[in-house]
């Protein structure tokens, strides 16, 4: 049939020849004038005639070929057979972002359904959800109806997606595919953080024999504000005073966004305010609440009004009010005169009030000898060693165990402290098994480094690691330059990830060093806790710094209260300092977790030191979860907040050109129809008839133009 049609191609030629044969021959007086006419005109006209003939032939050829319904098949799909198709769906939180009333995830699922609709019986499909790529075993299924049902049932997660892992899993699954035709489709909103280099690299490694199509289900970024944090600044507060809660808001879009913010506890709105943030701006909105007496827990939610991505509009924080926080002061230089006591300023600071969100601090001051008799340091949130000459081996061991288990130790040196004893019993500083943050050297006076130094010469602060939590949360700028150091001990902080210098003097000597040991932390201060060596206790910074230090050091063993959705976490649920010896009887019973409606999970528990840690699985939804720990017949309940990873709020799109360049084997399409059409064409070949018909129309139009306009000129 096609050949018959092809024979029609000869029609214009035949017509042309017949036309030539029947060409009118006119006797004419002379051809002299015709010969004199510019030959260019004649040549051009002849070319135009040939063009017309060619157009007519092309028109017929295009029609004939179109009627033959040809398809273009690449070498990859030259053969026939069934297809093994892997569909990777990015189900990260960002896929929930709405555009034109529809989420990227909905568009993605529609595209996946379109792809499945192109398959034939005995084709096999594997659907991999990127957020679960590492958890579930991907396998092929041939029941297309069931696959469609499953696809309609899936929902976007609130967690991050690991497209690199998903791509690797897809590659492995394709390697196991049994059908001759193998295809990979990756459906994503092309969010920038969802496309790490690893993911692109893995896709680039997929052989060219496996057509790889990326469906860009995303859309232009719309205004998106996210509640990224909720925190109670660690500042001292007195009973009955309003508590300040800072709500952190960030605008992840390129335009100024306006919204409203409410601080809620359950359905009760505690505080609210309008929100306006410029492009990319991170804003902190201070809000206040009043503690309700008798209530141990306050479940706070910072809630923004609706926008492009609703999942990140809430941030949750469980706030626990404890009656007291015990802090141990080991006094190395006691004095019957209170103001001459080494702990005078420290104790006064600690007794000045409670800490927001923690509660009242109860300092317990003991002598070195008494300290050695304390059986369980884990009853205390923080241990301060103040001008202790040198811990006994027993106390040193107890302190080391305490710190390893999550305890916080702050060491103030002074005129009584013996560097040699410290270095021997708590060092060496280089070891990751010891608790000394720095090697302690002899004392040095303020002007010792300078030959021209006068009497009472002092050094000032030269550098401060201002980003450290103990320096955070001040209301205003801190003038560290007003701190005078007349004498200090020389610290040598080893270069190590565990050791860090937090403050150093202008001469370069470290004055405050930190070390992480196990679950705990140790801070070493090279000055004194009183005013003998420096004026720190007299300066305004002293009080907030001590409060934040307590907050910081106690946080390692305090119950954690927040996890990121979709990320497994090890959480300290309870510690001796809160529950006393009760926890000693914990024998590893499973911890029940109950969350937003319908979410019931279980976690493994483990007693480490004076605390119980729970291995939380990845929590699926943002909100409050209640972990119930049963110890000695008693239920200990803890509230944990699960919050969306703020990175998911950043809807900036990946560099498509870079992906195309890095993975040239991948074809990026925009719509589900495109991807289904691409799938069909990849499988069945590229239908050419529509193009041919279009070409025929084009040739017809051109023929009309040449015949009626060009040749009639």
């Amino acid at each position, binding site marked *: 049939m096609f050949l018959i049609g092809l024979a029609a191609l000869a029609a214009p030629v035949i017509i042309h020849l017949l036309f030539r044969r029947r060409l009118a*021959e006119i006797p*004419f007086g002379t051809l002299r004038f015709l010969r004199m006419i510019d030959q260019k005109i004649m040549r051009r006209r002849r070319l135009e005639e040939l063009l017309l003939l060619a157009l007519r032939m092309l028109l017929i050829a295009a029609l004939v070929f179109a009627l033959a319904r040809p398809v273009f098949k690449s070498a990859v799909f030259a053969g026939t057979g069934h297809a093994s198709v892997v569909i990777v769906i990015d189900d990260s939180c960002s896929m929930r972002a709405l555009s034109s009333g529809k989420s990227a995830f909905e568009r993605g699922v529609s595209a996946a359904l379109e792809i499945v609709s192109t398959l034939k019986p005995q084709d096999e499909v594997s659907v991999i959800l990127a957020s679960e790529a590492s958890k579930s075993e991907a396998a092929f299924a041939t029941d297309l109806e069931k696959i469609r049902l499953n696809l309609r049932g899936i929902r976007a997660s609130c967690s991050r997606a690991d497209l690199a892992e998903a791509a690797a899993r897809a590659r492995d699954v394709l390697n196991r595919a049994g059908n001759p035709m193998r295809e990979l489709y990756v459906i994503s909103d092309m969010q920038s953080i969802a496309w790490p280099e690893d993911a692109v690299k893995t896709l680039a490694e997929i052989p060219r024999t496996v057509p790889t199509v990326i469906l860009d289900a995303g859309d232009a970024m719309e205004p998106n504000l996210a509640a990224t944090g909720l925190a109670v600044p660690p500042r001292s507060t007195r009973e009955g005073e309003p508590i300040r809660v800072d709500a952190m808001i960030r605008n992840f879009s390129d335009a100024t966004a306006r919204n409203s913010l409410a601080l809620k506890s359950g359905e009760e709105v505690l505080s609210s305010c309008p929100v306006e943030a410029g492009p990319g701006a991170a804003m902190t909105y201070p809000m206040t609440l009043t503690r309700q007496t008798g209530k141990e827990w306050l479940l706070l939610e910072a809630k923004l009004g609706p926008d492009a991505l609703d999942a990140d509009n809430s941030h949750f924080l469980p706030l626990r009010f404890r009656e007291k926080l015990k802090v141990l002061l080991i006094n190395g230089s006691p004095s019957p005169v209170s103001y001459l006591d080494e702990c005078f300023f420290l104790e006064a600071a600690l007794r000045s009030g409670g800490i927001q969100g923690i509660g009242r601090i109860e300092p317990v001051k003991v002598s070195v000898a008494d300290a050695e008799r304390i059986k369980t340091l884990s009853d205390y949130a923080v241990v301060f060693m103040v001008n202790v000459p040198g811990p006994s081996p027993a106390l040193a061991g107890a302190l080391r165990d305490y710190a390893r288990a999550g305890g916080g130790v702050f060491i103030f040196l002074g005129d009584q402290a013996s560097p040699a004893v410290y270095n021997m019993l708590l060092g060496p500083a280089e070891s990751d098994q010891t608790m000394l943050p720095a090697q302690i050297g002899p004392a040095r006076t303020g002007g010792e480094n300078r030959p021209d130094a006068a009497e009472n010469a002092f050094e000032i602060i030269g550098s401060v690691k201002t980003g450290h939590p103990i320096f955070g949360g001040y209301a205003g700028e801190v003038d560290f330059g007003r701190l005078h150091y007349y004498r200090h001990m020389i610290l040598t902080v080893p270069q190590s990830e565990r050791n860090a210098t937090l403050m150093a003097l202008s001469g370069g000597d470290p004055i405050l060093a930190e070390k992480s040991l196990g679950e705990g932390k140790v801070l070493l201060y090279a000055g004194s806790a009183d005013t003998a060596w420096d004026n720190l206790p007299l300066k305004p910074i002293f009080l907030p710094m001590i409060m934040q230090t307590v907050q910081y050091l106690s946080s390692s063993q305090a119950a954690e209260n927040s996890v990121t959705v979709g990320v497994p976490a090890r959480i300290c649920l309870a510690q001796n300092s809160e529950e006393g010896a009760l926890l000693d009887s914990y024998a590893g019973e499973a911890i029940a977790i109950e969350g937003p409606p319908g979410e019931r999970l279980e976690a493994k528990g483990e007693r480490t030191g004076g605390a119980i840690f729970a291995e939380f699985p990845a929590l699926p939804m943002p909100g409050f979860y209640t972990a119930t720990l049963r110890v000695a017949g008693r239920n200990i309940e803890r509230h944990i907040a699960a919050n969306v990873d703020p990175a998911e709020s950043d809807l900036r799109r990946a560099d498509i050109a870079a992906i195309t360049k890095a993975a040239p084997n991948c074809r990026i399409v925009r719509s589900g129809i495109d991807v289904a059409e691409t799938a069909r064409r990849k499988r069945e070949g590229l239908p050419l008839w529509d193009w041919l018909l279009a070409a025929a129309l084009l040739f017809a139009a051109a023929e009309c133009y040449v015949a009626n306009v060009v040749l009639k000129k």
Partner: protein
Amino acid sequence: MAKASGTKYYDPQAYSRFANLNLVARSVVEGYISGLHRSPLHGYSIEFAEYREYVPGDDLKHFDWKVFARNDKRYVKQYQEETNLVCNILLDASGSMAYASKGMSKFDYGCFLAAALSYLMVRQRDSVGLVLFDDAVRERVLPRSSPAHLKRILDALQSSKPSGRTGMAGTLHAVANTIKRRGLIVLISDLYDDTDAVMKALRHFRHDKHEMIVFNLFDPAELEFPFDGLVSFRDLETGERMQVMPRAIREAYLKQVEDFTAKLKRECSASRIDYQFVNTSMPYEFMLAAYLSRRTLAAR
């Protein structure tokens, strides 16, 4: 005249259109007898020319006694002699003259024209001759003025068919060499030859003091080029074929024709040759009547 009736190109009805017109030579021509035309010889004919002072021996019959009586001066009258005209009609009978888009071919038109002119001449008692030529003189009828001679001319016209190539220039030179007496030369042709050569030949006639009239014949199709579609033109003289799209070249063609006629007209004017552009779509009698009227007016 009656003797000429019955021949193809003799059309007395048409001749009535210019029955009251004469073809008068503008320049001086030499004839044998007195007639319409000015003779170069100042004899004693009818037309007074000038006075001349009497010299002894002059014929007293031309002595002007009246002047002598009034002024006592002796003058004799001189008269310009009128003579008859010798007209040679040169008719192009080459193949190109056979072209006729519809109806009458250029050659037929030329024949009718030649017959009419011959009739006119004979009616004026002038001598008229005919030369039929293509690339050589095909037939020649020597000038005579008798009505019977007209019949000979008509017969010569009727027996001729256009054919062969035009070798006009050489032929005209040859004809010019054979005509000794000054007279009127009427050339009827499409002039499809090398224009410069043709003009040179025409100037040859002018050099020999002949008065020249050129009737340049064109078929209307040659002037309008009304063809359409793809056409293969065949040259009537050479048989050569050329395939063209007339629509495409019409403009250029018409420009060529215009240039051709313009050049002829310009060159003829420069050589004092009476050039008459003739579209054969116009009946020859009308054309001739108009021409003669115009010529007569110009002569005054």
